[in-house]
Each structure stands twice: as C-alpha cells, then as structure tokens.
C-alpha cells in the first residue's frame, strides 16, 4: 500500500510553482508515475516524507512539440511512445528515438516521460546519452522565472540534479544537428524487454571526406550517470579516419570510464566490453557514412 497522499492538480505552471514553493519538503512532481508509484509502494527512501504529489497532466503546454528552423522543443510531459511516433523527432534525432524505443516495455513507454527519465537521473536512464550528444538544453521555471541550462550541467550524480526545490523542468530544447552528423545508439541489457541497461553508448560524429569533424560521445549505465567525454572528443576531432583511430578512441573511452568509476569488481569485464561496443558503434557509423555517399 502507498502511504496517504494528496494529489494536487494545478491548471497553470505558476500555480504549480507556487504550490511547490509552499510545500518544499512534502511536495513532489508526478509525471508518468512509473518510477514514483512503485517507489512509494515499496517504501523507497527516495520518496519518504512526500505528502503531496503535484500532477501536471492538465497543463497542455507541457505536452507540446514545437519545431523551428534551429530547434525542436519538446514539452516535459512527452511520453516515450509519443516521442517514438513523432516523425520530425525521428528524422532529426534518430538516436534519441532509438533509445526511447528500448526503454522498459510498451506499457512503461506509454506512461513514462523523457524528462522524468533524466530528472530521476538513474545511471541507467536510456535516453540520457542520446540527449547529451544532441547537446540538449533544458528549460526550468522557478519563482524567479524561466532559465535554460545544458543537460550535461544539470546532471550531478546518481539520483541528483541541479533541480532546486520549487522548480519545474518545462521543456527540452534539442538543437538540430547539421546534415553531416551521423550517429548511432547502443544498449546492452540482460534481456530484451523490461531490462535495466548495463551499458548504453551514443556517438554522433561529423564526417568530412576522410576526417572526423566534431565528435560527440556519451555513455550511460557503465558510468555513474549519463556523461559526455569532452576531453576525448577534442583530442580526436580533426583526425583522419582509420581502423586504428577508432580503436584508439574506444580504448581511451574505456580508460576515461575507469577514471570516473574507479576500479570495481566488474571493471575487468565491463571495460573491455564497453571498449569493444564503442569500437563496433564507431565502425558502424563510418560504414553507414560510406554507404550514404
């Protein structure tokens, strides 16, 4: 049984922010509820002391998808299923849509939201590495109004973000990558459905002639939270593509991950597997590029 709760259904964002600020310790936002309801049911420590769930479903602007020439902006309440079925997201952000289709199961995707996925900031949040390589920004609303922040700054450590008490993530801004960018997403779980990811990787690369332009790499699940590899990206941008190069990038990526995780009992097999997976991912991207040409 879930402990006693009140459900608050504000009609506007302002109302929601006010309520959250009036009840900082006791109120929590609920979106799809796929994490919070089972969490409450199990008495998870992450949700103790909650008396009010603030349900934002009635606020339509949180469900909109707005496209302009530079960005596609999605409302924070968009579910994974809605994302998978949206053509402009499919065309512009294929890695994100691919990761969305691997989240949980149909039943979960029909309810769970993309924003909930990264606000919860579990290491295994599947949509985070793709969001990171697309340089996603998020829009927040608090008592002092709206502001934006890159997603990579927002995520701090497992289950912690920069979300302040009384604030709401309202939108995710996805800058459309230039045409030359090509990428892919990789997920390893223990089985195909309802599996918690063990390794997720996303790579988005600009390929010009035989050279790497901008490179964007991100990992999830093997790293404590979804993260980018900015140093590595800089080191290799501009390099001439060769099999050796792809191997070097992958091997460096493994070393970087080891730096953040420290040596764990699982490192001995997880690091080589991650390196190999990254290598295969890069190889696939490069050969896909050749085919397009």
């Amino acid at each position, binding site marked *: *049984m*879930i*402990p*006693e*709760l*009140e*459900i608050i259904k504000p009609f506007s964002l302002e109302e929601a922010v006010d309520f959250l600020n009036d009840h900082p310790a006791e109120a929590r936002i*609920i979106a799809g*509820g*796929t994490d919070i*309801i*089972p969490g*409450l*049911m*199990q008495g998870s420590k992450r949700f103790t002391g909650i008396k009010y*769930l603030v*349900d934002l*479903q009635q606020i339509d602007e949180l469900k909109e998808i707005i496209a302009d020439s530079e960005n596609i902006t999605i409302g924070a309440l968009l579910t994974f*299923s809605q994302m998978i079925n949206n053509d402009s997201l499919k065309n512009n952000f294929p890695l994100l849509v691919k990761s969305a289709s691997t989240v*949980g*199961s*149909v*039943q*979960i995707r*029909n*309810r769970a939201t993309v924003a909930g996925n990264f606000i919860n900031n579990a290491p295994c949040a599947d949509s985070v590495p793709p969001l990171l390589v697309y340089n996603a920004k998020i829009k927040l609303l608090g008592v002092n109004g709206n502001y934006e922040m890159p997603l990579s700054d927002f995520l701090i450590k497992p289950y912690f973000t920069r979300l302040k008490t009384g604030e709401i993530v309202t939108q995710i801004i996805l800058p459309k990558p230039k045409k030359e960018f090509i990428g892919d997403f990789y997920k390893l779980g223990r089985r*195909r*459905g*309802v599996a918690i990811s063990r390794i997720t990787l996303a790579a988005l690369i600009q390929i010009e002639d035989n050279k790497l332009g901008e490179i964007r790499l991100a990992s999830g699940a093997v790293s404590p939270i979804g993260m980018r590899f900015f140093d590595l990206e800089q080191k290799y941008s501009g390099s001439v593509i060769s099999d050796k190069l792809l191997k070097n990038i992958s091997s460096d990526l493994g070393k970087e991950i080891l730096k953040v995780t420290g040596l764990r009992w699982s490192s001995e097999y997880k690091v080589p597997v991650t390196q190999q997976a990254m290598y295969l991912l890069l190889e696939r991207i490069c050969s896909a590029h050749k085919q397009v040409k």
Partner: protein
Amino acid sequence: MNDKSSPRKFSRRKFVQGVSTTIIGSYVLTPGVSKISEKLEAETKEIASGKKPLNLIVNKVRYELMISPETTLAEVLRNELKLTGTKLICNHGECGGCTVLLNGEAIYSCQMLALDAGEKEVTTIEGLLTGEELHPIQKAFVEHDGLQCGYCTPGQIIAAQAILLKNSQPSKEEILTGMSGNLCRCAAYPNILKSVLAAAGYLTEGTNR
C-alpha cells in the same frame, strides 16, 4: 455478495450491474447512471472524508467512486470493482500481470494512480467477453495452449489486444516487442506467440465474430 448461493446464473457483467447502486466498502457504484439518491449521497460524504471523487469508465460501464488519492488503478479494479481478472503479481511495474487498456493503450495498472484514469476508458480482461462468449484472442489462447498456470494470461491477452487494435497483422517480431513487458513464469512463450498469431488470423477472417 453471495452470488454463489444464488440460484440464478450470473454473467460477470450482470453481476456488476446487479450491485450497481450499492456501497461496496467505501465506494459508491453507479454504472450507467450518474444520479445517486440523497441518502446515499449523504452516506457517501460521511464515508468519504479524505476521499476524492473518481469517474471511472471500465469496460464501457461508468462508475462514480470515492477513493483515497493514493489508491492505484489496479487496487480499484480488483478490490472495489471486484474485477479480479486483472492480476497483481509484482505490483512493481515489471511483470505485466496488471496490464489493462487505457484509451486503447496498454499500461500497467499497478503503476498508476486511479485518479489519473478519471474520465478515460479502461478495458480489462472482463471487457473482452461478449456475454459469456470468449473474445477471439481468448479462444486462440485456449486452442493453442497459450497458458500453463494462467496467472499471467489476462495481462498477456490485453497486451495482445493492444497490438491487434493497432495492427491486425503483426509480424512475429512486432508481437515479441509489443509483449516484452509481459513475463510468464511458466515460460509458455512459444504458445503465447502461436496464440496471438492465430488470433490475428481469426480476427481478419472474421470467422469468430
């Protein structure tokens, strides 16, 4: 509610209608009708301290309930409406036993608050029956041994229905993806797949309906 001792044969739907305007536990059921008597209304208010009204449409029947806000949809279906075909197995959003349709889409009813389902159409396994007649998917499961112990079966059938509503001729792969959220501890998977493929056949032939 001792329908067992009743000499008349109750179909499940008749049974639900039979208890329509009585209070079950702390809930007022008024399928089909939205007016409740003043006396009942007063009683309801009394019982309802801390409770919230919920308009739920389950299997095309409208229920007006008063519920505690923290009640999940699965709990309302099973404990209050006595629609126990929906199974609570893990109660944690992982097994699929509690799968129901919400506006035609499969969801886990254990993972969602009942208040959230207000004014939306819920379909449970009981809603697939026509009177006492089985739905083609149910027939297919019987004919192709799509079950062993049967615990996961209502969830499997509803998940299959969600697929078939969108795509009358799903491929094997589409069925496997669409039903990956439904676990079967008896591992009846091969026959579940056969049953769904057969059901797709029945439905398109229209021979069973």
